[in-house]
């Protein structure tokens, strides 16, 4: 149908001044570039509370977007935005951001906490948060270099019950003290 219309329009010259009629549907870049106003160019965030999306796993992004849309994962703004997109859009943006280079950050972390966190993560978190949190596998987000205030806000949401922890993660997190968890987040924020 589109082709026929295009042929007719070309023949009659109706297209001479309008690019609208022959435009292709939005590409992954087209959809994803718009996210950068908040998440940074190619998903590398410079804002202290805004998460980086670069190099996140495709599944983790699609999963997050679906949970934002359904309301299962609490959000300030992502739930409202996710409602404007289809599953196919989620797939496109997840593909785009998963292909972007890891975004290292330099942030103010407490050295003693980083050391403590490093020791704790091995036994508690490294099974899922691979390579010191640098590798996002399946539905597990990249945590290395993620901004500390963002990680703290998300941990608060988990602790309050507003955001639901994966069961196996909850088993590991529950026995840890507030100080332990804080140390872990300092560690992940420091990894480059």
């Amino acid at each position, binding site marked *: 149908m589109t082709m026929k219309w295009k042929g007719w329009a070309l023949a009659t010259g109706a297209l001479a*001044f*309008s*690019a*609208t*009629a*022959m*435009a*292709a*549907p*939005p*590409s992954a*870049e*087209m*959809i994803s*570039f*718009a*996210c*950068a*106003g*908040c*998440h*940074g*160019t190619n998903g590398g*965030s*410079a*804002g*202290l*509370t*805004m998460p980086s999306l670069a190099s996140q796993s495709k599944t983790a992004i699609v999963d997050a977007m679906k949970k934002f849309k359904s309301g299962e994962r609490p959000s*300030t*703004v992502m739930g*409202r*935005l996710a*409602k*404007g*997109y289809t599953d196919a*859009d989620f797939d496109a943006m997840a593909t785009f951001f998963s292909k972007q280079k890891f975004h290292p950050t330099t942030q103010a972390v407490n050295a003693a906490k980083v050391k403590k966190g490093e020791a704790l993560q091995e036994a508690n978190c490294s099974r899922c948060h691979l390579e010191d949190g640098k590798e996002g596998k399946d539905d597990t987000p990249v945590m290395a270099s993620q901004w500390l*205030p963002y990680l703290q*806000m998300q941990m608060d949401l988990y602790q309050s019950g507003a955001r639901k922890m994966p069961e196996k993660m909850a088993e590991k997190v529950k026995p840890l003290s507030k100080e332990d968890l804080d140390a872990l987040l300092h560690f992940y924020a420091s990894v480059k």
Partner: protein
Amino acid sequence: MTLDRRSFLKLVGAGAGAAGAAGLPMIGMAAELMPKSGRRVVVVGGGYGGTIAAKYVRMLDKSIEVVMIERNKQFVSCPFSNFYIAGLTNDMNSLTIGYDKLAANHGVKMVYAEVTGIDPAAKKVVTDQGTLDYDRLIVSPGIDFRTEEIEGYDAKTAEIFPHAWKAGAQSTLLRNQLQSMKDGGTVIISMPLTPYRCPPGPYERSCLIAHYLKTHKPKSKLILLDANPDVVSKKPLFTKAWSTYYKDNFQYIGGKKITKADTGAKLVSVEGIEDFKGDVINLIPPQRAGDIAVKAGLVGDDKKWCPVDAVSFESTKHKGIHVIGDATALPSDGPPMPKSGYSANSQAKVCAMNVVNLLNGKETIEFSGINVCYSAISDHESVSIAQVFKLEGGKIKSSATAISPADFSLGKAEHAYGESWLKNILTEMST
């Protein structure tokens, strides 16, 4: 020093401009600035739209030369300037960007000059420093004011009744006026009919100035005169903020279109029948596309905004010229994209992509974009509107639009996210 040089050039330019008939610039007289060898995109305006368009053209195709022309060496962000005006930050630097890193990282060539004309037939931009040839031109000049609609408004009015609707010296002026006002004074904000730059902006400003007065000058009051009959943006949120936090020192009055300004008597009036006196008057005049868009014949029949194609952002008035940001009138189905920094950023990317596609003889791609505007309602809480826009039947239509919950339960988190938004968008524009 810079200023001296600029005013000198303006003087020189004025003579040349007067000689050009019917707004057509005298190209013959000006020297060519940089001879064009390969394919070139010229961008006019290094603000929220222009910087992003320039950067993304280069990101998408390094074989295209990009030259950006901007009158100022530094750009001051309107977003968050209300914080500065209301004394919640003393740091104008966090609102200010330069262009050196953008130029170095992406090979965008900067020309600091005033664009004085565009010749669409010859594909030439005329500046006060010389001319530039282009294959495609992207224009993102922001807004200028329809001061002719306010009786008594002259070249000096904004120095006494600041608009502070372009950030920088105007923001400082309004801030200083507020700080030197005696306690017990009256502040007036007058805002124009929609469409204007940043729909929630005047309401955000009213909250933050009311917050300033409540904190520092408790006997003073603030009146917001809205030319619109009712609040045009995030109404449930702003009315709630006013009644919760500022009911003792703030008054909203709708349907008050200011038609006259008297800086001597310190008053503004509605149709000459109703006067409002103020110790500080923030008069935000009605707006239109930036002067250069008007001069270049890019505005539509309304003489205010630039009609463009909803995919390529190519002007429907002149081929080869694309307009983005506040200056545009986009074909819309339902409420249009607001004139915001986020919209300008999002449109710039769509435009850049399609300009590159057109230059490469490739198919254009349909619009998909976002607008989010954070507005502070106090010193520690913000609210937002979030919108997704897509193309439908040749027009831009919102597929989702929603505001923050009215119980302000997310206010503190959004205050923090808003700050990060500013940091990210300014970083995106300047690196």
